[in-house]
């Protein structure tokens, strides 16, 4: 048997159910490996002792009917976890310990999952490289000094480095799919309204969505089944019939129509991305899918629309971090002075930039030109997809316009950083499900991902296509554990 930490979630569950591995053994393996992996800096807060304790408790009274029986799992530090510090990667929440649990994480614990720790991420999920985190950069396990993507960079790195069998991220404009693409892992952003936002530190409420990140497609289907639920505590949660995603998973996608949007062939896109996409189309054909050219005419407006809507909502969502009730408070001469000092010291540069952009686009006199117009364009983008889905069942695109870049390479150029999200952002604007699966490597042997976008609430088709293509692609990460040497 291969090492515990390199097992997929599915394999680990199987071994635990067959009593070949105990929950405590699994927990120990992940904790031991984490102790040797500090260099990649995935953890903001470790919950190791408690995890070991709880795994022992599970072994004493095991319940193998659960979907995640005694499985240790690390989660992005954007999910509020009861009595475990939750920072959102920000200094302003450096010492914040919630007294409540997010619905998504609660769903995981209810099915037997055990918290390993809280994973690094871009501050308030604003970033594409994990470089905006107050808790330092995360190393991509693929190669030294490479970013793991973002904002769920700690999550993708932890997965690729075999520090957690599976994890959850949040995706506002690509924050699950882009880091998955950069680390050769799988990341699924479900339909908006599938997973409750209750207890997730908000970035942009109309776009934020939690989702599974895993080593393969099957694992994502298992985790999605656990975390997707209707929740009355979130008014935007949608009460629809959810599939048994893992048991309904099939590689039979014969006859499914897959659309190829011509607008995703953007200027300056590297050849290798173009090649990867073509390869993906061939794989899809091999799987029995029918390929159809489609048009999503408003694609080029998606990024500017996103960078109005998301900062606008963020500027308001982050107003609560004012030093009055919890989190960091810097002392000031008066209330205004206290606000200014707290927020100046508590927020990093990227967060400040977006709060300023958001405040600006909502300001009287600019609202119509920016926010209102962006909302209208958002509708058009949604309509593009609606029309496309009259002809096709799903859409295939590259996940990102490039592979992972070096730490520091883009940190002084926000616009080039924002361009990373060009293929993922339209999916959030339209509220659709999208998955990134590893599909190949670039000239440096860095992973590249393909994205499959589905109809609303049709995660099953997305997963089935991904599952089917995954088999043909047969991608394997080549991780050398360089950080341990």
């Amino acid at each position, binding site marked *: 048997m291969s090492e515990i930490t390199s097992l997929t979630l599915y394999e680990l569950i199987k071994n635990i159910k067959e009593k070949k591995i105990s929950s405590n053994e699994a927990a120990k393996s992940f904790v031991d490996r984490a102790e040797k992996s500090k260099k990649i800096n995935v953890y903001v807060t470790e919950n190791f002792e408690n995890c070991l304790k709880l795994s022992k408790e599970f072994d004493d009274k095991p319940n193998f009917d659960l979907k995640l029986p005694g499985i240790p799992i690390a989660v992005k530090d954007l999910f509020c976890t009861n009595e475990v510090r939750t920072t959102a990667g920000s200094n302003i929440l450096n010492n914040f310990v919630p007294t409540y649990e997010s619905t998504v994480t609660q769903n995981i614990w209810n099915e037997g999952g055990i918290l390993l720790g809280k994973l690094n991420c871009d501050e308030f999920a604003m970033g594409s490289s994990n470089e905006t985190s107050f808790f330092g950069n995360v190393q991509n396990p693929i190669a030294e000094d490479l970013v793991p993507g973002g904002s769920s960079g700690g999550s993708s790195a932890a997965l690729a480095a075999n520090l957690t069998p599976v994890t959850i991220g949040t995706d506002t404009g690509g924050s699950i799919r882009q880091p998955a693409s950069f680390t050769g892992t799988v990341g699924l952003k479900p339909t908006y309204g599938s997973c409750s936002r209750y207890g997730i530190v908000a970035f942009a409420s109309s776009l934020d969505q939690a989702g599974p990140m895993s080593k393969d497609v099957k694992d994502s289907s298992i985790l999605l089944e656990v975390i997707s639920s209707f929740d009355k505590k979130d008014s935007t949660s949608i009460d629809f019939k959810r599939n048994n995603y893992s048991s309904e998973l099939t590689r039979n996608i014969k006859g499914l129509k897959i659309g190829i949007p011509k607008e995703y062939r953007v200027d300056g896109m590297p050849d290798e991305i173009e090649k990867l996409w073509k390869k993906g189309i061939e794989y899809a054909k091999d799987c029995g899918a029918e390929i159809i050219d489609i048009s999503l005419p408003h694609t080029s407006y998606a990024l500017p629309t996103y960078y109005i809507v998301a900062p606008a909502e963020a500027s308001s969502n982050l107003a*609560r971090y004012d030093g009055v009730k919890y989190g960091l408070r810097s002392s000031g001469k008066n209330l205004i002075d206290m606000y200014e000092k707290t927020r100046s010291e508590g927020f990093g540069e990227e967060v400040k930039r977006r709060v300023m952009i958001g405040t600006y686009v909502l300001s009287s006199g600019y609202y119509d030109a920016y926010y209102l117009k962006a909302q209208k364009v958002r509708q058009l983008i949604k309509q593009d997809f609606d029309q496309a889905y009259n002809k096709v069942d799903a859409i295939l695109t590259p996940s990102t316009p490039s592979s992972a870049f070096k730490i520091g390479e883009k940190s002084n150029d926000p616009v080039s950083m924002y361009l990373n999200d060009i293929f993922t952002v339209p999916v959030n604007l339209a509220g659709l499900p999208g998955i990134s699966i590893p599909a190949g490597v670039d000239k440096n042997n860095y992973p590249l991902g393909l994205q499959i976008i589905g109809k609303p609430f049709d995660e099953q088709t997305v997963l089935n296509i991904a599952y089917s293509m995954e088999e043909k692609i047969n991608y394997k990460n080549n991780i050398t554990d360089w950080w341990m040497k």
Partner: protein
Amino acid sequence: MDEIMSKNNSEYLIERNDNVYEVVIGLEVHAQVTSNSKLFSSSSTKFGAEPNTQVSLVDAAFPGMLPVINEFCVKQAIKTGIGLKAKINNKSVFDRKNYFYADLPQGYQISQYKYPIVGEGNVILDMPEGQKQVGIERLHLEQDAGKSIHDIDPSNTLVDLNRSGVALMEIVSKPDLRSPDEVNAYIKKLRSIMRYLGTCDGNMQEGSLRADVNVSVRIKGSTDLGTRCEIKNVNSIKFMQMAIIYEANRQVDLIEEGQEIDQETRLFDTKKNETRSMRSKEDAHDYRYFPDPDLLPLEVTNEFIDKLKSEIPELPDDKKKRFIDEFKVSPYDATILVSDIDTAKYFEEVIAKMGKNRDMKLAVNWITGELFAVLNEKNIEIAQSPISAKNLAKLINLIKNGTISGKIAKTIFELMLDGDIDPQIIVEEKGLKQESDPKALEALIDKIINDNREKAIEYKQGKEKLFGFFVGQAMKASGGKANPQLINEILKKKL
């Protein structure tokens, strides 16, 4: 409905150097929704609890907390809209009004901006000279903020979040009010309607009802609106009236001096009885309203609205009409009786208990006269009346059927106050039954005439005012119990 007033005597006019100014007033009333829990959380709304004991994670805006609309508050707002004869909007939207303040945990207030739940409506005011219709612009739902307390700690402001998130209805009138008297009538009418509906208790001391007052002045007869000032957060009718009078005169003085009026927000200083500038239009907050992405647009079906319509009780205007038509009560009395739902209930209970041979006029007079005097004196509401409607009805019936005189009734009324005693029992125990036996009264009067022969002769010679002397003597001799009508008749005959 009475005719809409053509001549407005309640108008408040200011004369300066041959110019006659009228004042134009619009009110934004903030009415706390009667509800056990808050607009977007399940925390209690009870008044007067220890600071920060009625605060949920949502109210304190903890990370990741989300608002969930309280359906009961929505129903309350719709009911109020129906009471204001207003259009109920099938779709409304909650927006965020963004500003920083220590007692505003989210950094924004959830309110309704472009699409309120209730649109245009109106209320009818009963002014001494007739009725006046005041237009309602809109009613929207919003959250209240917490409370900043500046006077407990010398160097810190303390914050109490008990009120944070409590549901308010903001009811915006059109600029249809013309005087402090009309403002008084308007607030009272609004409060009356909401108390009938059970949607707001209207308690101004507890802050359940407060208003921002918009005041402008113009030459009487002009149809243009002058530049207005908004006086923020006035929490009693008296202060509203004082603020309006001060503000209107200030504006007239400025105009007469040839100066411009700045559109600004002002505060009313109750101690100095003056309004003061709070912030000018240039300093006005940019609230950056936008639809709250945590909440879906609020959609209500016509069936939902119709169901609520069917639950609406008889409202003051209809009740007044019925009192006039059915009970033949004068419009003036009817206005008084319906103004407060508890008064109307009390009156109707008295009527019901009086039975068939009821005397409406007596009932109205006893309630608006004796009973109101006692309530005023004791400073209590009619709901806490020391005399029940049942026993007051009995007392009135005792007068009506001649068992007691009106004068004795007043004595009995006083005695009833001590524990809501049945007047019949008082009559029997104290022997206060009216003497209506003509033979007994004749004997009594014969004795009085006999004892006062000289006065009787003077009367016969034309000193007619002595008649009252004999009545008084007769009443005195009977211990006040003699039937005054019979005394009069017998005296006339015997003298």
